[in-house]
């Protein structure tokens, strides 16, 4: 069995980040966009923890805890906004919410 090394963690992290990014950029449903953002945040967490393990530095793990906390807060605010948005526009499709153009 091939030992799990740092490079694997990084590859997994990159893959997750890529998937999350593509999800954010391509999906129209805001719920899914939020889920993709969650994916990207967790890719970052994996990266932080992998290097914390490799270098024996606990800072990375601490930072990952912060990121998780942040992700929770972000999900709560994001979903709140989403509900408010849905009440006003009766939609959760990102491309139908285009008030920000010139």
């Amino acid at each position, binding site marked *: 069995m091939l030992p799990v090394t740092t490079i694997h963690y990084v590859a997994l992290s990159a893959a997750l980040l890529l998937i999350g990014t593509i999800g954010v950029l391509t999906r129209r449903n805001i719920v899914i966009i939020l889920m993709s953002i969650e994916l990207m945040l967790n890719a970052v967490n994996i990266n932080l923890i992998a290097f914390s393990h490799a270098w024996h530095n606990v800072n990375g793990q601490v930072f990952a805890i912060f990121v998780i906390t942040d992700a929770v807060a972000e999900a709560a605010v994001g979903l709140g906004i989403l509900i408010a948005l849905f009440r006003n526009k009766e939609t959760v499709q990102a491309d139908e919410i285009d008030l920000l153009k*010139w």
Partner: protein
Amino acid sequence: MNFLDLIWLIPLFPLAGAVLMLLTGKLLDPQPPSDVAVAPGVELGGAGDPPAQSHAHHHPGALQNLIRVICPGMVLVSCIFSAGAVWQLAHLTKRVYEVRQFTWIGAMPFHMANGHLATFQVDWGFLLDPLSSVMILVVTGVGFLIHVYSTGYMAHDNGFYRFFGYLNLFVFFMLMLVLANNYTLLFVGWEGVGLCSYLLIGFYYHKKSAGDAGKKAFIVNRVGDTGFVLGMLLMLSVLGTVRFTDVNAALRSGQFPVEAGYGVLTAMALLMFFGATGKSAQFPLYVWLPDAMEGPTPVSALIHAATMVTAGVYMVARSSALFQLTPVAGMWVAGIGAFTAIFAATIALVQNDIKRVLAYSTVSQLGYMFLALGVGAYWVAIFHLFTHAFFKALLFLGSGSVIHAMGGEQDMRYMGALKKKIPITHWTMWVGSVAIAGIPGLAGFFSKDEILWQAFSSPKGSTALWAVGLVTAAMTAFYMWRLMNMTFYGQSRVKPAVAVHLHESPAVMTWPLIALAAGSVLAGWLGVPKLWSIFGEGFRAFPRWLAPVFLLGGAESEHPASTEWSLMILSVAIAAGGISLAYYLYSKRPDIPDRILARFRPLYTVLYNKWYVDEIYDFLFVNGLCKGGGSAMAEFDRTVVDGGVNGAGWLTRFSATVSMWWDTWIVDGAVRFTSFSVKLLSYPACLLESGRVQSYALFVVVGLLAFLGYYIAR
């Protein structure tokens, strides 16, 4: 009592009467509820005065008697003061008394026509000399008699106080006119009498014809006044003064600054004469006088026969020094006078309205006066003015008495055989008619014969002028006796309804008639012909009295006495012929006039319609010049004036349009082009702003990758 120092009081008495009447008259003589309520009764009486019709409407109050005393009384006091002043004037060596009350128009320097500096100053001053003394005696004397007569004639009329207020005001202005010592003050009186004339002609203001006649008189007089004012201004410009004594002195001495020659003086004289033709009803401005008969008859007697209409004669006589210097003007005066005399006489031949005959007779007699003025016989003109005042006032008042008796009827075709009914009126009018016809012994003969003789013999006269005068004399005798015969003799043609009311006028009306009849007999004896030397110098008092004013006694006539005798006999014969012809035609054979009328129908029609002068004036001036000119003016207004305004408006609008175009396309264009070009340039950048959040996120990612790629590739 020194009356000469008090001459300023003479006009003030009637003025006081007028002010009193016009301010408080309503209290003294309460009116019936409405003046106008009388109007229907008035109109039934035709064109005439309505004294009889108003009987039922107006019961004079006791206070009215106060008016009866005050108004004639004021004129009487004035008359006494005048007589006193004239009496004292006669005892002065120079027989001129001039007094300056106060400066009316202060000294105003101005440049005369020749560039010299002169001062224009008008004093409120009075000049009493033989000429004005004759005038004030006539005005106050005859005026007083007519006032007395009016108290009877107007007794039952509405507006009693108004009538006497105006009448007194008239006397005031007339006295101002004749007593003034300069032309400007004379003009005040001149306009004032015109105003009173207007007010009194339109006295029955609820009758349209009376109102129209008043307006006509006023307007025609203004036409003449234009000439007078222009003449006065020319005099001021050439001679630098308007004071009679200064003007006459300058003209007589020949030392006046006139570089332009005597043509200027001729123009001045003719302009003033034009003013006189307006006031004294001469051709071409006589048309107002016959219409003025719409006023009450005493007004016709006082204003339109005895006094006001002679103002022009007085004014020309006053300017005798000027007219002496200008033979051309004198020729015009004589010509117009002679023409007016015969012209008006022809009209008087066929009129049926008793007052209208007298009106044209007045115009004709005024023509005589101007004939005399024109040939340089100034004292004769004033003499005729003097005698005419008596007999014409008498005839008018007599006709008023007839109208009073007839209850307002003025048409002579409905009179006849009134001699027995109203004997006093008849006999006094008989005297007046004999006097005007020119039968020796009565006033008219002396003055008229002197005019004819002067027209024949004076250096400026001619046989033609004399012949015109003679024919006019024949016509005068004829129409006056036509009037007498149609009114007093022959068959009665009085309407039965009127006949029962026929009555002689009250004493207050007959006594003035008798007094004037006495005047008509006696007045002429002041100026008997020179040939009648057996009477002595006393009977030539009039020319001697006036001599200082006119500087008489120049060239004696070279005609032999036999010529004068024969001319005199001829004129008497022709007058007698006129009288007997009228008697024969209208009393003996009343059928003949109708046959003559049928024979000469066109001529009769022309004469009856007064030569259509009124119609011609209507066509030329009223409709032609005023209305036609008015429409031409309106056309001018519409096309030129309005065109100018419209053009200006169009121009403004046009320039505004141009300005707007400039604003829109150039100013706004620059601004909009700037913004457009910015917009055009910024358009590609705008395309990035799609509003979709994910596209923005894509740019972030792409940018991130670009940086990343850059650092990796380095």
